[in-house]
């Protein structure tokens, strides 16, 4: 009996402040710890995704620049064909993100080649068209001006750059999945970060 009373007295005398302090400390430290942990994870994830995109657009630019290098080819390389060559590399790195080729929607809702080759220049443009966590692979070609007879006082070739080969730009643009919660990142939908990586090269084009 005496032992039980002693126990009750000891319990009552036990200071309650340390446990309250521990809870407050824990409540303060936990968000900081989670912020640091998730931040580090997201930075690593972002670096992996961006590196994969960079090497993919480099490879795509080489594929696209050689796509027109046959005596019979006169048209710009098809974005879908270029995307097919790099989709495996992108899919393995951009998990949680849909990857599409940029093209115009035809009457049946299918993907028709974009005759105007209007590529999105900002991730927001892709998000408005395709929704959150979507990146598009866009291939555009800038053709040189046609050569004309030079006016008096000018020398051929005229205008400057008219004999150049076309320039191909491959762009991966959109929002990739990330750990950034809604309201904290630039993505309106949350859990996404913008990306906009491009590669440009000249293409070899045979005369028809």
């Amino acid at each position, binding site marked *: 009996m005496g032992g039980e009373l002693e126990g009750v007295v000891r319990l009552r005398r036990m200071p309650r*402040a340390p446990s309250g302090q521990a809870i407050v400390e824990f409540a303060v430290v936990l968000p900081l710890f989670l912020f640091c942990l998730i*931040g580090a994870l997201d930075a690593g994830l972002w670096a992996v995704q961006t590196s994969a995109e*960079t090497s993919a657009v480099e490879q795509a630019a080489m594929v696209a620049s050689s796509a027109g290098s046959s005596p019979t080819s006169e048209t710009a390389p098809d974005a879908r064909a270029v995307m097919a060559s790099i989709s495996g590399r992108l899919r393995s790195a951009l998990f949680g993100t849909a990857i599409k080729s940029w093209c115009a929607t035809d009457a049946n809702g299918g993907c028709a080649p974009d005759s105007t080759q209007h590529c999105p220049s900002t991730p927001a443009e892709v998000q408005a068209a395709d929704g959150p966590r979507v990146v598009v692979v866009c291939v555009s070609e800038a053709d040189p001006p046609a050569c004309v007879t030079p006016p008096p006082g000018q020398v051929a070739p005229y205008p400057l*750059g008219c004999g150049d080969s076309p320039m191909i*730009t491959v762009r991966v643009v959109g929002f990739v999945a990330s750990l950034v919660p809604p309201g904290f990142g630039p993505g309106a939908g949350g859990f996404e970060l913008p990306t906009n990586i*491009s*590669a440009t*090269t000249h293409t070899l084009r045979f005369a028809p």
Partner: protein
Amino acid sequence: MRRSRRRGDDAQAVLETALVIPILLFLICNFVAVMVQVTVQEQLNAATALAAQSRFQAPENAVDPAGSRCCGVHGATLVTAGLPTGCRYAAESFYGTMTTYTGLLHWQTATLCTSGGDSGNAANPPAKPVAYPGSPANADVSCDIGSIKPGGAVVPGYVDRTLNPPSGLDVVTCSASASLDFANTPLAWGVFWTPTLHAQAEALPPPFRQ
């Protein structure tokens, strides 16, 4: 007595937190900086590789006419008149690809177009490339390329003696260097180093070309 002990515990906790939080943020800043460095290095490698490859998209004997210029992406316009057209193609590919993170980079400018570099071997001493006459010296990328002048004279490019020994192969090399500076970013709080990034790419001539 008990009150003073509790006050001491509180002070210790505050001190621990004040020590740990800056260290954590310092580590996070440096981790993010390393990730940025890896990403920029990757892009620099891609831009340099595409620049070297682009040289072969121009005819071997094509020369830029008077008035030709290019790029101007990073605030500099490069006059390429009189240089091999492949030289301008290389610059256009480099600047067209190196479009992001440019605010973090301080470029080490170099001569845009050079010729005659030699990796060297036992019989041939290594040779440094020389600048093409009139080649701009304020380019962010430098390419060592050969060409054929209108009269038929061959200007040698970079000879890599490790390929096809012992005579070597006449290839194109492009290189670029820049230092990565975090001074104008929030990372400057905890990142005190300024790494120098360097990329070099070599391209072999394709079997069939113009």
